Protein backbone atom coordinates (compact mmCIF):
# COMPACT_ATOMS: atom_id res chain seq x y z
CA UNK A 1 0.00 0.00 0.00
CA UNK A 2 2.79 2.42 0.87
CA UNK A 3 4.50 1.54 -2.37
CA UNK A 4 1.36 2.56 -4.24
CA UNK A 5 1.23 5.92 -2.51
CA UNK A 6 4.85 6.46 -3.33
CA UNK A 7 4.31 5.52 -6.99
CA UNK A 8 1.30 7.78 -7.25
CA UNK A 9 3.39 10.69 -5.99
CA UNK A 10 6.07 9.94 -8.56
CA UNK A 11 3.52 9.88 -11.38
CA UNK A 12 1.90 13.08 -10.12
CA UNK A 13 5.26 14.85 -10.02
CA UNK A 14 5.95 13.81 -13.60
CA UNK A 15 2.58 15.18 -14.58
CA UNK A 16 3.32 18.53 -12.95
CA UNK A 17 6.55 18.73 -14.93
CA UNK A 18 4.79 18.00 -18.21
CA UNK A 19 2.21 20.64 -17.36
CA UNK A 20 4.85 23.32 -17.02
CA UNK A 21 6.27 22.27 -20.36
CA UNK A 22 3.01 22.53 -22.31
CA UNK A 23 1.39 25.60 -20.85
CA UNK A 24 -0.40 26.58 -24.04
CA UNK A 25 -2.05 23.18 -24.41
CA UNK A 26 -3.13 23.34 -20.79
CA UNK A 27 -4.76 26.72 -21.27
CA UNK A 28 -6.50 25.66 -24.49
CA UNK A 29 -7.99 22.53 -22.92
CA UNK A 30 -8.98 24.34 -19.75
CA UNK A 31 -10.64 27.07 -21.78
CA UNK A 32 -12.48 24.52 -23.90
CA UNK A 33 -14.10 22.79 -20.94
CA UNK A 34 -14.64 26.03 -19.09
CA UNK A 35 -16.45 27.62 -22.02
CA UNK A 36 -18.62 24.63 -22.87
CA UNK A 37 -19.90 24.43 -19.28
CA UNK A 38 -20.18 28.18 -18.82
CA UNK A 39 -22.33 28.59 -21.93
CA UNK A 40 -24.81 26.19 -20.35
CA UNK A 41 -25.28 28.69 -17.52
CA UNK A 42 -25.61 31.63 -19.89
CA UNK A 43 -28.27 29.61 -21.70
CA UNK A 44 -30.20 29.12 -18.45
CA UNK A 45 -29.97 32.79 -17.55
CA UNK A 46 -31.33 33.78 -20.98
CA UNK A 47 -34.21 31.35 -20.60
CA UNK A 48 -35.06 32.57 -17.12
CA UNK A 49 -35.55 36.08 -18.48
CA UNK A 50 -38.70 34.62 -20.01
CA UNK A 51 -40.00 32.38 -17.23
CA UNK A 52 -40.12 32.64 -13.40
CA UNK A 53 -39.38 28.97 -12.71
CA UNK A 54 -38.80 25.75 -14.58
CA UNK A 55 -40.90 22.83 -13.47
CA UNK A 56 -40.98 24.30 -9.97
CA UNK A 57 -37.22 24.95 -9.80
CA UNK A 58 -35.82 28.46 -9.58
CA UNK A 59 -32.84 29.74 -11.57
CA UNK A 60 -30.63 29.67 -8.47
CA UNK A 61 -31.55 26.06 -7.76
CA UNK A 62 -30.83 24.97 -11.34
CA UNK A 63 -27.48 26.74 -11.21
CA UNK A 64 -26.63 24.72 -8.11
CA UNK A 65 -27.66 21.41 -9.73
CA UNK A 66 -25.66 22.31 -12.83
CA UNK A 67 -22.58 23.37 -10.88
CA UNK A 68 -22.77 20.47 -8.46
CA UNK A 69 -22.84 18.05 -11.41
CA UNK A 70 -19.51 19.41 -12.67
CA UNK A 71 -17.49 18.60 -9.55
CA UNK A 72 -17.61 14.77 -9.44
CA UNK A 73 -17.38 14.82 -13.24
CA UNK A 74 -14.27 16.99 -13.10
CA UNK A 75 -12.61 14.92 -10.38
CA UNK A 76 -13.15 11.69 -12.27
CA UNK A 77 -12.05 13.35 -15.49
CA UNK A 78 -8.86 14.61 -13.85
CA UNK A 79 -7.87 11.31 -12.23
CA UNK A 80 -8.99 8.52 -14.57
CA UNK A 81 -9.13 9.97 -18.08
CA UNK A 82 -6.77 7.30 -19.35
CA UNK A 83 -9.60 4.73 -19.17
CA UNK A 84 -10.67 6.09 -22.57
CA UNK A 85 -7.41 4.77 -24.00
CA UNK A 86 -8.38 1.26 -22.94
CA UNK A 87 -11.53 1.58 -25.03
CA UNK A 88 -9.79 3.28 -27.92
CA UNK A 89 -6.39 1.67 -28.49
CA UNK A 90 -4.76 -0.32 -25.67
CA UNK A 91 -6.55 -3.55 -26.57
CA UNK A 92 -6.80 -3.23 -30.33
CA UNK A 93 -3.12 -2.28 -30.66
CA UNK A 94 -1.92 -4.71 -28.02
CA UNK A 95 -0.51 -1.88 -25.94
CA UNK A 96 -2.09 -3.25 -22.78
CA UNK A 97 0.84 -5.68 -22.56
CA UNK A 98 2.99 -3.32 -20.58
CA UNK A 99 0.45 -3.08 -17.76
CA UNK A 100 0.53 -6.83 -17.35
CA UNK A 101 4.30 -7.08 -17.28
CA UNK A 102 4.84 -5.04 -14.15
CA UNK A 103 4.12 -6.38 -10.64
CA UNK A 104 1.61 -3.64 -9.89
CA UNK A 105 -2.18 -3.65 -10.09
CA UNK A 106 -3.11 -3.07 -13.78
CA UNK A 107 -6.01 -0.73 -12.95
CA UNK A 108 -3.69 1.39 -10.82
CA UNK A 109 -1.21 1.62 -13.69
CA UNK A 110 -3.96 2.42 -16.14
CA UNK A 111 -5.20 5.48 -14.28
CA UNK A 112 -1.73 6.63 -13.23
CA UNK A 113 -0.55 6.92 -16.79
CA UNK A 114 -2.22 10.25 -17.28
CA UNK A 115 -3.76 13.09 -15.33
CA UNK A 116 -6.12 15.23 -17.37
CA UNK A 117 -5.42 18.89 -16.72
CA UNK A 118 -8.35 19.98 -18.92
CA UNK A 119 -10.68 18.90 -16.12
CA UNK A 120 -9.62 21.97 -14.16
CA UNK A 121 -11.95 23.92 -16.46
CA UNK A 122 -14.93 21.85 -15.27
CA UNK A 123 -13.84 22.08 -11.64
CA UNK A 124 -13.53 25.87 -11.80
CA UNK A 125 -17.07 26.18 -13.17
CA UNK A 126 -18.39 23.67 -10.63
CA UNK A 127 -16.83 25.29 -7.57
CA UNK A 128 -17.66 28.80 -8.74
CA UNK A 129 -21.34 27.91 -9.11
CA UNK A 130 -21.47 26.10 -5.76
CA UNK A 131 -19.86 29.09 -4.03
CA UNK A 132 -22.32 31.35 -5.84
CA UNK A 133 -25.16 29.20 -4.47
CA UNK A 134 -23.78 29.42 -0.92
CA UNK A 135 -23.42 33.19 -1.16
CA UNK A 136 -26.98 33.73 -2.34
CA UNK A 137 -28.31 31.32 0.34
CA UNK A 138 -29.66 28.71 -2.10
CA UNK A 139 -27.83 26.14 0.00
CA UNK A 140 -26.69 26.47 3.60
CA UNK A 141 -23.31 25.50 4.97
CA UNK A 142 -23.38 23.35 8.11
CA UNK A 143 -20.70 20.91 9.27
CA UNK A 144 -23.04 18.01 8.41
CA UNK A 145 -23.68 19.39 4.95
CA UNK A 146 -19.99 19.86 4.26
CA UNK A 147 -19.34 16.27 5.28
CA UNK A 148 -22.21 15.00 3.15
CA UNK A 149 -20.99 17.15 0.28
CA UNK A 150 -17.57 15.53 0.38
CA UNK A 151 -19.03 12.03 0.63
CA UNK A 152 -21.39 12.76 -2.23
CA UNK A 153 -18.72 14.19 -4.50
CA UNK A 154 -16.49 11.20 -3.86
CA UNK A 155 -19.32 8.72 -4.50
CA UNK A 156 -20.32 10.62 -7.63
CA UNK A 157 -16.80 10.51 -9.02
CA UNK A 158 -16.72 6.78 -8.29
CA UNK A 159 -19.94 6.30 -10.25
CA UNK A 160 -18.38 8.12 -13.22
CA UNK A 161 -15.22 6.03 -12.99
CA UNK A 162 -17.19 2.80 -12.73
CA UNK A 163 -19.39 3.55 -15.72
CA UNK A 164 -16.33 4.43 -17.77
CA UNK A 165 -14.44 1.36 -16.61
CA UNK A 166 -17.37 -0.94 -17.32
CA UNK A 167 -17.88 0.18 -20.90
CA UNK A 168 -14.15 0.54 -21.63
CA UNK A 169 -13.56 -3.01 -20.37
CA UNK A 170 -15.88 -4.32 -23.05
CA UNK A 171 -12.95 -3.63 -25.37
CA UNK A 172 -11.31 -6.79 -24.01
CA UNK A 173 -14.00 -8.71 -25.86
CA UNK A 174 -14.91 -6.46 -28.80
CA UNK A 175 -11.45 -4.81 -29.18
CA UNK A 176 -12.71 -1.25 -29.67
CA UNK A 177 -15.48 0.02 -27.41
CA UNK A 178 -15.02 3.75 -27.85
CA UNK A 179 -18.40 4.30 -29.52
CA UNK A 180 -20.31 2.49 -26.75
CA UNK A 181 -18.33 4.29 -24.08
CA UNK A 182 -19.06 7.62 -25.72
CA UNK A 183 -22.76 6.76 -25.87
CA UNK A 184 -22.84 5.87 -22.18
CA UNK A 185 -20.75 8.86 -21.11
CA UNK A 186 -22.88 11.35 -23.00
CA UNK A 187 -26.02 10.28 -21.16
CA UNK A 188 -24.54 12.33 -18.30
CA UNK A 189 -25.71 15.39 -20.26
CA UNK A 190 -29.27 14.59 -19.25
CA UNK A 191 -28.37 14.71 -15.57
CA UNK A 192 -27.47 18.39 -15.63
CA UNK A 193 -31.16 19.31 -15.47
CA UNK A 194 -34.02 18.19 -13.17
CA UNK A 195 -35.05 14.63 -13.91
CA UNK A 196 -38.71 15.62 -13.86
CA UNK A 197 -38.53 17.25 -17.30
CA UNK A 198 -37.90 13.89 -18.98
CA UNK A 199 -40.35 11.12 -19.86
CA UNK A 200 -40.39 7.84 -17.92
CA UNK A 201 -38.07 5.93 -20.25
CA UNK A 202 -35.20 8.38 -19.95
CA UNK A 203 -35.70 8.67 -16.18
CA UNK A 204 -35.55 4.88 -15.88
CA UNK A 205 -32.28 4.69 -17.83
CA UNK A 206 -30.66 7.45 -15.78
CA UNK A 207 -31.75 5.92 -12.50
CA UNK A 208 -31.31 2.20 -13.00
CA UNK A 209 -29.24 1.44 -16.11
CA UNK A 210 -26.60 4.18 -16.33
CA UNK A 211 -27.13 5.80 -12.93
CA UNK A 212 -25.96 9.34 -13.66
CA UNK A 213 -29.01 10.71 -11.86
CA UNK A 214 -27.31 9.70 -8.61
CA UNK A 215 -24.21 11.70 -9.46
CA UNK A 216 -25.90 15.03 -9.70
CA UNK A 217 -29.61 15.47 -9.49
CA UNK A 218 -30.49 13.34 -6.44
CA UNK A 219 -27.70 14.54 -4.13
CA UNK A 220 -28.10 18.14 -5.33
CA UNK A 221 -31.80 18.00 -4.54
CA UNK A 222 -30.95 16.94 -1.00
CA UNK A 223 -28.76 20.01 -0.49
CA UNK A 224 -31.54 22.19 -1.91
CA UNK A 225 -34.45 20.77 0.08
CA UNK A 226 -32.78 19.09 3.04
CA UNK A 227 -35.17 16.17 2.74
CA UNK A 228 -34.62 12.46 2.37
CA UNK A 229 -30.92 12.11 3.06
CA UNK A 230 -31.20 8.31 2.96
CA UNK A 231 -32.94 8.18 -0.42
CA UNK A 232 -30.56 10.67 -2.03
CA UNK A 233 -27.01 10.60 -0.66
CA UNK A 234 -27.46 7.24 1.05
CA UNK A 235 -28.65 5.75 -2.22
CA UNK A 236 -25.83 7.44 -4.10
CA UNK A 237 -23.20 5.82 -1.88
CA UNK A 238 -24.89 2.43 -2.19
CA UNK A 239 -25.13 2.72 -5.99
CA UNK A 240 -21.51 3.87 -6.19
CA UNK A 241 -20.44 0.76 -4.27
CA UNK A 242 -22.51 -1.56 -6.45
CA UNK A 243 -21.44 -0.16 -9.82
CA UNK A 244 -17.80 -0.11 -8.74
CA UNK A 245 -17.92 -3.80 -7.76
CA UNK A 246 -19.57 -4.70 -11.06
CA UNK A 247 -17.22 -2.59 -13.18
CA UNK A 248 -14.09 -3.82 -11.46
CA UNK A 249 -15.23 -7.44 -11.76
CA UNK A 250 -15.79 -6.98 -15.50
CA UNK A 251 -12.34 -5.39 -15.79
CA UNK A 252 -10.73 -8.35 -13.95
CA UNK A 253 -12.62 -10.81 -16.11
CA UNK A 254 -11.51 -8.86 -19.20
CA UNK A 255 -7.86 -9.22 -18.17
CA UNK A 256 -8.20 -12.99 -18.38
CA UNK A 257 -9.45 -12.90 -21.98
CA UNK A 258 -6.95 -10.26 -23.14
CA UNK A 259 -4.80 -11.48 -25.98
CA UNK A 260 -2.10 -9.28 -27.34
CA UNK A 261 -2.02 -8.08 -30.92
CA UNK A 262 0.60 -9.03 -33.46
CA UNK A 263 1.87 -12.21 -34.94
Amino acid at each position, binding site marked *: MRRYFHLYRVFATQFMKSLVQSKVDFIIGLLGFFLSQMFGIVFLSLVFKQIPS*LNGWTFEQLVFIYGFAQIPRGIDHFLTDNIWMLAMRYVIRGEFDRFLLRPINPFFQLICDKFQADAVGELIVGFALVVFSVVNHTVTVTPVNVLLFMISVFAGALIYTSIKLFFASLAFWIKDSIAILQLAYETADFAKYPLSIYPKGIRFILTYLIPFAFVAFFPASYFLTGENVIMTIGAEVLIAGIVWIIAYAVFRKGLTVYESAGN
Partner: protein
Amino acid sequence: MGCEVVSVKKRSLRQSLRIYKPFTIGRIQEQLAYKWSFYLFIFSSMFSLLVGYYLWRAIYQSSSSEALNGFTQNDMIVYIFMSFITSNLVRVSVTRDIGNDVVEGTIAMNLVKPINYQVRLFFSSLGNVLFRFLMPGLPIWLVMSIVRYVNLGELPPSPIVIVSYLVSVCLSFGIMFLFDFCFGLLSFYTTYVWGLNLAKQAILGFLTGQLIPLSFFPEAIQRIFDFLPFASMNYIPVMIYLNKMPLERVIISMGIQVIWIIILYLIANYFWKRVTKRITVLGG
Protein backbone atom coordinates in the same frame (compact mmCIF):
# COMPACT_ATOMS: atom_id res chain seq x y z
CA MET B 1 13.89 23.33 -43.82
CA GLY B 2 11.79 26.09 -45.27
CA CYS B 3 9.10 24.98 -47.61
CA GLU B 4 7.90 26.81 -50.69
CA VAL B 5 4.38 26.16 -51.80
CA VAL B 6 4.46 24.58 -55.21
CA SER B 7 2.60 26.78 -57.61
CA VAL B 8 -0.15 24.94 -59.35
CA LYS B 9 -0.73 25.40 -63.04
CA LYS B 10 -4.09 26.68 -64.10
CA ARG B 11 -6.35 23.82 -65.00
CA SER B 12 -9.72 23.63 -66.60
CA LEU B 13 -12.62 23.10 -64.24
CA ARG B 14 -13.23 19.63 -65.64
CA GLN B 15 -9.67 18.60 -65.03
CA SER B 16 -9.74 19.93 -61.48
CA LEU B 17 -12.92 18.07 -60.73
CA ARG B 18 -11.40 14.86 -62.01
CA ILE B 19 -8.31 15.37 -59.85
CA TYR B 20 -10.04 16.34 -56.64
CA LYS B 21 -13.14 14.16 -56.79
CA PRO B 22 -11.36 11.15 -55.24
CA PHE B 23 -10.82 13.16 -52.06
CA THR B 24 -14.56 13.63 -51.71
CA ILE B 25 -15.28 9.98 -52.41
CA GLY B 26 -12.47 8.90 -50.11
CA ARG B 27 -13.96 10.86 -47.24
CA ILE B 28 -17.36 9.26 -47.78
CA GLN B 29 -15.82 5.79 -47.85
CA GLU B 30 -13.87 6.59 -44.69
CA GLN B 31 -17.12 7.23 -42.85
CA LEU B 32 -18.66 4.06 -44.17
CA ALA B 33 -15.71 1.93 -43.14
CA TYR B 34 -16.70 1.72 -39.49
CA LYS B 35 -20.42 1.67 -39.92
CA TRP B 36 -21.32 0.34 -36.53
CA SER B 37 -19.41 2.83 -34.45
CA PHE B 38 -20.42 5.57 -36.86
CA TYR B 39 -24.11 5.03 -36.14
CA LEU B 40 -23.45 4.88 -32.42
CA PHE B 41 -21.62 8.20 -32.59
CA ILE B 42 -24.53 9.76 -34.44
CA PHE B 43 -26.91 8.35 -31.91
CA SER B 44 -24.96 9.80 -29.00
CA SER B 45 -24.72 13.18 -30.72
CA MET B 46 -28.51 13.17 -30.78
CA PHE B 47 -28.61 13.20 -26.98
CA SER B 48 -28.01 16.93 -26.97
CA LEU B 49 -30.97 17.29 -29.30
CA LEU B 50 -33.15 15.24 -26.93
CA VAL B 51 -32.03 17.23 -23.90
CA GLY B 52 -32.83 20.42 -25.78
CA TYR B 53 -36.23 19.11 -26.83
CA TYR B 54 -37.37 18.18 -23.32
CA LEU B 55 -35.81 21.28 -21.81
CA TRP B 56 -37.69 23.58 -24.18
CA ARG B 57 -40.93 21.67 -23.61
CA ALA B 58 -40.55 22.19 -19.87
CA ILE B 59 -39.71 25.84 -20.44
CA TYR B 60 -42.90 26.40 -22.44
CA GLN B 61 -44.97 24.52 -19.87
CA SER B 62 -43.58 26.82 -17.19
CA SER B 63 -44.33 29.91 -19.22
CA SER B 64 -47.56 31.86 -18.93
CA SER B 65 -47.40 33.17 -22.49
CA GLU B 66 -47.83 31.24 -25.73
CA ALA B 67 -44.77 32.63 -27.43
CA LEU B 68 -41.32 33.53 -26.15
CA ASN B 69 -39.55 36.17 -28.20
CA GLY B 70 -41.86 35.43 -31.12
CA PHE B 71 -41.28 31.66 -30.97
CA THR B 72 -44.23 29.41 -30.18
CA GLN B 73 -43.45 25.98 -28.76
CA ASN B 74 -43.91 24.46 -32.21
CA ASP B 75 -41.56 26.99 -33.79
CA MET B 76 -39.00 26.22 -31.15
CA ILE B 77 -39.13 22.49 -31.69
CA VAL B 78 -38.67 22.93 -35.43
CA TYR B 79 -35.91 25.41 -34.63
CA ILE B 80 -33.86 23.03 -32.51
CA PHE B 81 -34.33 20.13 -34.94
CA MET B 82 -33.36 22.20 -37.97
CA SER B 83 -30.51 23.72 -35.99
CA PHE B 84 -29.23 20.26 -35.22
CA ILE B 85 -29.50 19.16 -38.86
CA THR B 86 -27.92 22.35 -40.19
CA SER B 87 -25.02 22.46 -37.77
CA ASN B 88 -24.36 18.79 -38.51
CA LEU B 89 -24.37 19.48 -42.24
CA VAL B 90 -21.96 22.39 -42.17
CA ARG B 91 -19.70 20.98 -39.48
CA VAL B 92 -16.37 20.38 -41.16
CA SER B 93 -13.26 18.81 -39.71
CA VAL B 94 -10.62 21.03 -41.32
CA THR B 95 -9.06 21.86 -37.96
CA ARG B 96 -8.55 18.17 -37.33
CA ASP B 97 -7.31 17.49 -40.86
CA ILE B 98 -4.70 20.23 -40.73
CA GLY B 99 -3.83 19.39 -37.13
CA ASN B 100 -3.18 15.75 -37.91
CA ASP B 101 -1.11 16.65 -40.97
CA VAL B 102 1.00 19.01 -38.90
CA VAL B 103 1.45 16.66 -35.97
CA GLU B 104 2.34 13.71 -38.17
CA GLY B 105 4.48 15.80 -40.49
CA THR B 106 2.56 14.71 -43.58
CA ILE B 107 1.88 18.38 -44.25
CA ALA B 108 5.29 18.53 -45.96
CA MET B 109 4.34 15.86 -48.50
CA ASN B 110 1.02 17.56 -49.06
CA LEU B 111 2.72 20.84 -49.86
CA VAL B 112 5.17 19.24 -52.25
CA LYS B 113 2.58 17.32 -54.24
CA PRO B 114 1.31 19.04 -57.38
CA ILE B 115 -2.13 19.64 -55.92
CA ASN B 116 -3.47 22.59 -54.06
CA TYR B 117 -3.68 21.72 -50.36
CA GLN B 118 -6.57 24.08 -49.67
CA VAL B 119 -8.62 22.77 -52.60
CA ARG B 120 -7.92 19.24 -51.46
CA LEU B 121 -9.20 20.07 -47.97
CA PHE B 122 -12.28 21.64 -49.51
CA PHE B 123 -13.11 18.55 -51.51
CA SER B 124 -12.58 16.30 -48.49
CA SER B 125 -14.96 18.49 -46.49
CA LEU B 126 -17.46 18.28 -49.30
CA GLY B 127 -17.46 14.55 -48.69
CA ASN B 128 -18.43 15.20 -45.07
CA VAL B 129 -21.34 17.39 -46.11
CA LEU B 130 -22.70 15.05 -48.75
CA PHE B 131 -22.54 12.16 -46.36
CA ARG B 132 -24.16 14.02 -43.47
CA PHE B 133 -26.89 15.20 -45.78
CA LEU B 134 -27.91 11.57 -46.26
CA MET B 135 -27.09 10.51 -42.71
CA PRO B 136 -28.35 11.79 -40.32
CA GLY B 137 -29.76 14.92 -42.06
CA LEU B 138 -32.42 13.51 -44.35
CA PRO B 139 -33.82 10.80 -42.02
CA ILE B 140 -34.20 13.22 -39.10
CA TRP B 141 -35.86 15.77 -41.35
CA LEU B 142 -38.24 13.13 -42.71
CA VAL B 143 -39.17 11.83 -39.27
CA MET B 144 -39.72 15.37 -38.01
CA SER B 145 -41.87 16.31 -41.02
CA ILE B 146 -43.98 13.16 -40.86
CA VAL B 147 -44.55 13.45 -37.11
CA ARG B 148 -45.61 17.05 -37.52
CA TYR B 149 -47.95 16.21 -40.35
CA VAL B 150 -49.60 13.35 -38.47
CA ASN B 151 -49.89 15.17 -35.13
CA LEU B 152 -50.53 18.74 -36.20
CA GLY B 153 -51.52 18.42 -39.85
CA GLU B 154 -48.67 20.77 -40.62
CA LEU B 155 -47.00 20.53 -44.03
CA PRO B 156 -43.29 21.20 -44.55
CA PRO B 157 -42.49 24.69 -45.90
CA SER B 158 -42.99 25.52 -49.59
CA PRO B 159 -40.39 24.41 -52.16
CA ILE B 160 -39.19 28.01 -52.53
CA VAL B 161 -38.42 28.19 -48.82
CA ILE B 162 -36.65 24.84 -48.90
CA VAL B 163 -34.58 25.87 -51.91
CA SER B 164 -33.58 29.16 -50.25
CA TYR B 165 -32.72 27.19 -47.13
CA LEU B 166 -30.47 24.87 -49.12
CA VAL B 167 -28.77 27.78 -50.89
CA SER B 168 -28.17 29.44 -47.54
CA VAL B 169 -26.79 26.17 -46.14
CA CYS B 170 -24.31 25.99 -49.02
CA LEU B 171 -23.14 29.51 -48.18
CA SER B 172 -22.93 28.52 -44.50
CA PHE B 173 -20.74 25.62 -45.50
CA GLY B 174 -18.41 28.01 -47.32
CA ILE B 175 -18.17 30.27 -44.28
CA MET B 176 -17.67 27.34 -41.96
CA PHE B 177 -14.97 25.82 -44.15
CA LEU B 178 -12.98 29.05 -44.32
CA PHE B 179 -13.46 29.75 -40.62
CA ASP B 180 -12.35 26.25 -39.72
CA PHE B 181 -9.39 26.59 -42.05
CA CYS B 182 -8.22 29.74 -40.27
CA PHE B 183 -8.78 28.06 -36.94
CA GLY B 184 -6.92 24.96 -38.09
CA LEU B 185 -3.85 27.04 -38.90
CA LEU B 186 -3.48 27.52 -35.15
CA SER B 187 -2.26 23.93 -35.05
CA PHE B 188 1.00 25.22 -36.49
CA TYR B 189 1.48 26.85 -33.09
CA THR B 190 0.12 24.17 -30.74
CA THR B 191 -0.07 20.42 -31.14
CA TYR B 192 -3.09 20.01 -28.90
CA VAL B 193 -5.61 19.70 -31.71
CA TRP B 194 -8.17 17.92 -29.57
CA GLY B 195 -8.34 20.75 -27.05
CA LEU B 196 -8.41 23.29 -29.84
CA ASN B 197 -11.37 21.52 -31.40
CA LEU B 198 -13.20 21.40 -28.09
CA ALA B 199 -12.81 25.12 -27.51
CA LYS B 200 -13.98 25.81 -31.05
CA GLN B 201 -17.00 23.55 -30.71
CA ALA B 202 -18.00 25.22 -27.45
CA ILE B 203 -17.82 28.69 -28.97
CA LEU B 204 -19.60 27.74 -32.18
CA GLY B 205 -22.30 25.71 -30.45
CA PHE B 206 -23.35 28.76 -28.54
CA LEU B 207 -22.72 31.72 -30.82
CA THR B 208 -24.24 30.17 -33.95
CA GLY B 209 -27.54 29.75 -32.14
CA GLN B 210 -27.54 25.97 -31.76
CA LEU B 211 -28.61 26.05 -28.12
CA ILE B 212 -30.90 29.04 -28.20
CA PRO B 213 -32.10 31.41 -30.96
CA LEU B 214 -29.93 34.50 -31.13
CA SER B 215 -33.02 36.69 -30.70
CA PHE B 216 -33.09 35.64 -27.03
CA PHE B 217 -29.89 37.58 -26.39
CA PRO B 218 -30.04 41.17 -25.08
CA GLU B 219 -30.27 43.85 -27.78
CA ALA B 220 -26.73 45.14 -27.28
CA ILE B 221 -25.21 41.69 -27.74
CA GLN B 222 -27.31 41.07 -30.84
CA ARG B 223 -25.82 44.25 -32.33
CA ILE B 224 -22.35 42.76 -31.74
CA PHE B 225 -23.44 39.52 -33.45
CA ASP B 226 -24.23 41.56 -36.56
CA PHE B 227 -20.50 42.15 -36.95
CA LEU B 228 -19.50 38.51 -36.45
CA PRO B 229 -19.75 35.59 -38.87
CA PHE B 230 -21.41 33.20 -36.41
CA ALA B 231 -25.04 33.96 -37.21
CA SER B 232 -24.34 33.27 -40.87
CA MET B 233 -23.18 29.75 -40.06
CA ASN B 234 -26.38 28.31 -38.68
CA TYR B 235 -28.93 30.82 -37.44
CA ILE B 236 -29.71 32.42 -40.82
CA PRO B 237 -30.51 29.22 -42.76
CA VAL B 238 -32.65 27.94 -39.90
CA MET B 239 -34.60 31.20 -39.72
CA ILE B 240 -35.10 31.02 -43.47
CA TYR B 241 -36.48 27.50 -43.10
CA LEU B 242 -38.84 28.66 -40.35
CA ASN B 243 -40.08 31.34 -42.75
CA LYS B 244 -39.44 33.97 -40.09
CA MET B 245 -37.94 36.44 -42.54
CA PRO B 246 -39.56 38.51 -45.26
CA LEU B 247 -38.15 37.98 -48.75
CA GLU B 248 -35.96 41.07 -48.85
CA ARG B 249 -34.47 40.15 -45.48
CA VAL B 250 -33.66 36.68 -46.87
CA ILE B 251 -31.82 38.23 -49.80
CA ILE B 252 -29.93 40.65 -47.55
CA SER B 253 -28.94 37.78 -45.24
CA MET B 254 -27.59 35.76 -48.12
CA GLY B 255 -25.68 38.84 -49.28
CA ILE B 256 -24.13 39.06 -45.82
CA GLN B 257 -23.19 35.40 -46.05
CA VAL B 258 -21.43 36.04 -49.37
CA ILE B 259 -19.58 39.00 -47.88
CA TRP B 260 -18.39 36.79 -45.03
CA ILE B 261 -17.11 34.22 -47.50
CA ILE B 262 -15.07 36.93 -49.23
CA ILE B 263 -13.70 38.35 -45.96
CA LEU B 264 -12.80 34.94 -44.56
CA TYR B 265 -11.26 33.92 -47.87
CA LEU B 266 -8.93 36.90 -47.77
CA ILE B 267 -8.03 36.27 -44.13
CA ALA B 268 -7.45 32.57 -44.77
CA ASN B 269 -5.15 33.30 -47.70
CA TYR B 270 -3.16 35.86 -45.78
CA PHE B 271 -2.55 33.57 -42.84
CA TRP B 272 -1.87 30.57 -45.05
CA LYS B 273 0.94 32.48 -46.77
CA ARG B 274 2.41 33.54 -43.46
CA VAL B 275 2.22 30.10 -41.93
CA THR B 276 3.71 28.20 -44.85
CA LYS B 277 6.70 30.54 -44.81
CA ARG B 278 7.69 29.64 -41.28
CA ILE B 279 6.85 25.94 -41.39
CA THR B 280 9.49 23.54 -40.15
CA VAL B 281 9.00 19.83 -40.59
CA LEU B 282 11.22 17.33 -38.84
CA GLY B 283 12.58 14.31 -40.61
CA GLY B 284 13.01 13.57 -44.26
